[in-house]
């Protein structure tokens, strides 16, 4: 126990430092280079007006969103994997992300003129519509996978099918857009932190923080569920109720992530797997580690994506997919 505890603490501290390190690099890089010294100066209030503008109004909101979306997605994936007892579950693969994406695109093009002109209450209704879409998608997937209970394998296959269905719905809708909006929607749907400003942070991040805290608080319930339904019921756990609560948390986290950063796939799959590998399967230690790991991966991917082919940007979701699919395929080959 002592050693496990030590490992956990070591990983948490290491990851925390890693995130701070990437954060500092990310602050320095971009079309306007600002040296670490100047970043520090600006943070203690001694920077030039221009540096303040770039750091506080352009870079920091995006970084904050990347960190919290990374946390939310990896936590959502970890919970889905725990609840469905299937190591290959992920909000992207299951179709929850594309459901949320469909409703968001519908909302923007029905009630707002375009993606860049969101203002006032529009910003706060966006996460609501993403959540709505995520829950509708989850309900559809669950209902279609239900056949005297929900088998993990059937759930995944149904998820893939529903995902394709939402994709077709999106294509139908995208035809009505002008070419520029079409491309923007395409990019956003594959994962992009597209509206990095403080209004947006205030619309999405508080909800994510609340759900993360609640999820971490629930991690012991996930352990009991993993023992199998019979044993869990024997231990006196209200299995169906706990499962439902956990699912709601996972879907909520995925929905809010989509509102902020589009449909990033595979992150919710890869981060929990790495976490399980380094600190073991116990959810009390695995969930916090995978949360920080998700934040670190997404922040790194965002930094790479926005600088590697500058001045053009690669959307963060694309970087995540390219980097994590080989690992996913490896997992696929390994699990029986």
């Amino acid at each position, binding site marked *: 126990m002592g050693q496990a505890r030590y490992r956990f603490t070591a990983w948490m501290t290491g990851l925390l430092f890693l995130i701070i390190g990437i954060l500092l690099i990310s602050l320095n890089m971009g079309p306007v280079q600002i040296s670490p010294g100047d970043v520090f100066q600006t943070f203690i209030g001694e920077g030039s007006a221009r540096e303040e503008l770039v750091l506080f109004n352009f870079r920091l909101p995006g970084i904050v969103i990347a960190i919290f979306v990374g946390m939310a997605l990896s936590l959502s994936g970890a919970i889905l994997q725990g609840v469905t007892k299937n190591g*290959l579950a992920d909000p992207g693969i299951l179709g929850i992300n594309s459901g949320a994406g469909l409703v968001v695109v519908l909302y923007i093009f029905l009630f707002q003129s375009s993606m860049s002109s969101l203002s006032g209450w529009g910003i706060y209704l966006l996460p609501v519509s993403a959540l709505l879409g995520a829950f509708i998608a989850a309900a559809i997937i669950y209902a279609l996978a239900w056949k005297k209970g929900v088998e993990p394998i059937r759930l995944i296959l149904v998820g893939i099918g529903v995902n394709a269905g939402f994709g077709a719905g999106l294509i139908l809708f995208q035809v009505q857009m002008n070419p520029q909006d079409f491309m923007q929607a395409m990019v956003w749907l594959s994962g992009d932190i597209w509206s990095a400003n403080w209004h947006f942070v205030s619309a999405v991040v508080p909800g994510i923080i609340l759900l993360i805290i609640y999820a971490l608080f629930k991690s012991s319930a996930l352990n009991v569920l993993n023992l199998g339904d019979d044993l869990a019921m024997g231990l006196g756990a209200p299995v169906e109720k706990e499962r439902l609560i956990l699912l709601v948390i996972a879907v909520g986290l995925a929905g809010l992530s989509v509102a902020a950063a589009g449909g990033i796939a595979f992150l919710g799959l890869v981060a929990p797997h790495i976490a399980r590998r380094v600190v073991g399967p116990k959810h009390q230690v695995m969930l916090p580690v995978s949360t920080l790991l998700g934040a670190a991966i997404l922040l790194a991917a965002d930094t790479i994506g926005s600088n590697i082919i500058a001045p053009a940007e690669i959307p963060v979701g694309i970087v995540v997919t390219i980097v994590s699919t080989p690992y996913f*395929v490896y997992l696929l080959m390994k699990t029986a």
Partner: protein
Amino acid sequence: MAQSDELKTEQLPKRIGRAAFIFIFSCIGLVFSLGASVAFGVSDIELSTVWQAVVAFDPAQTNHQVIQELRLPRAVGAALVGSFLAVSGAVMQGLTRNPLASPSVMGVTHGAAFALIVALVFFPSLSNIGMTFASFIGAGLAVLLVFTVGSFSSGGLTPVKLALAGVAIGGMLSSLSTAISLHFQVAKQMSFWYAGGLANTDWTSVQILLVAGGIGLVIAIAISKAMTVLSLGEDVSKGLGQNTILVKSLGVVVVFLLSGAAVSVAGTVGFIGLVIPHISRFLVGADYRLIIPVSAVLGGWLLVAADTGARLVNAPYETPVGAITAFIGVPFFLYLARGNRGNM
């Protein structure tokens, strides 16, 4: 599915009559759809004019021009693409004995589209035929990747694994395509291949389809008997003295010839390769000598009808045909996913 159908091959003579009836019936359906596809559009043209334009072409008439240069190649192209996708799906299902195997589920169409983007960016002067070759290479690459993943996994390539490997490899390839197209600003062409559509089909594309696909179809029919035996199980096939490696290799060649040609003309049109072979198997039984021709005609029929629908649903705008095939294909996929068929 293999075991339960084992005995049905014995009743071949009885089934041939039925298959012939279905084949002829679908051919008639296909011809009618082709006629409708040529006649309906932004401006409707009477069927008699269509007939005139085909048998007695008069360059002075606008309608004849529209039919000869736009609608006819498009309709014929749709028929060929549909039948190629259906046959490559049938071959994939036969080789892998996996009900979910099909060009779109396995990421093969994404592979072809990826290679097309790469060719477009790095070899912009490539001719149409060169582009088709790029598409073959991409399709072949994706087939190879998925089969490699399958053969190195513990427990073999179950339907779930196959679908997930397809999702992963398809996702990876389309992400790479997006990154490349954003960097080199060819996003517009990319969105065309990804949405899928037959709007740009001309006689050159039909020629390419006929040559590449013709070879693929001939090989498919040639190995159809061996494939029927193979679909009963690898051991049975080896026991009967079949060279399973040869059959499988030829099957892979068929898949990338047919899918590659289809994607280079029409982009990633999904689900035809999944749905049609199942319908054909349901209609004519488990013998691939019957499944392949019936799939070819039914696949062509479906895509011609879907393409006509794509033009009419929201006229004068075109709806991407991939969206229409998905609306037929997704419920079917869900039906397959829900059924606990033996090896699911």
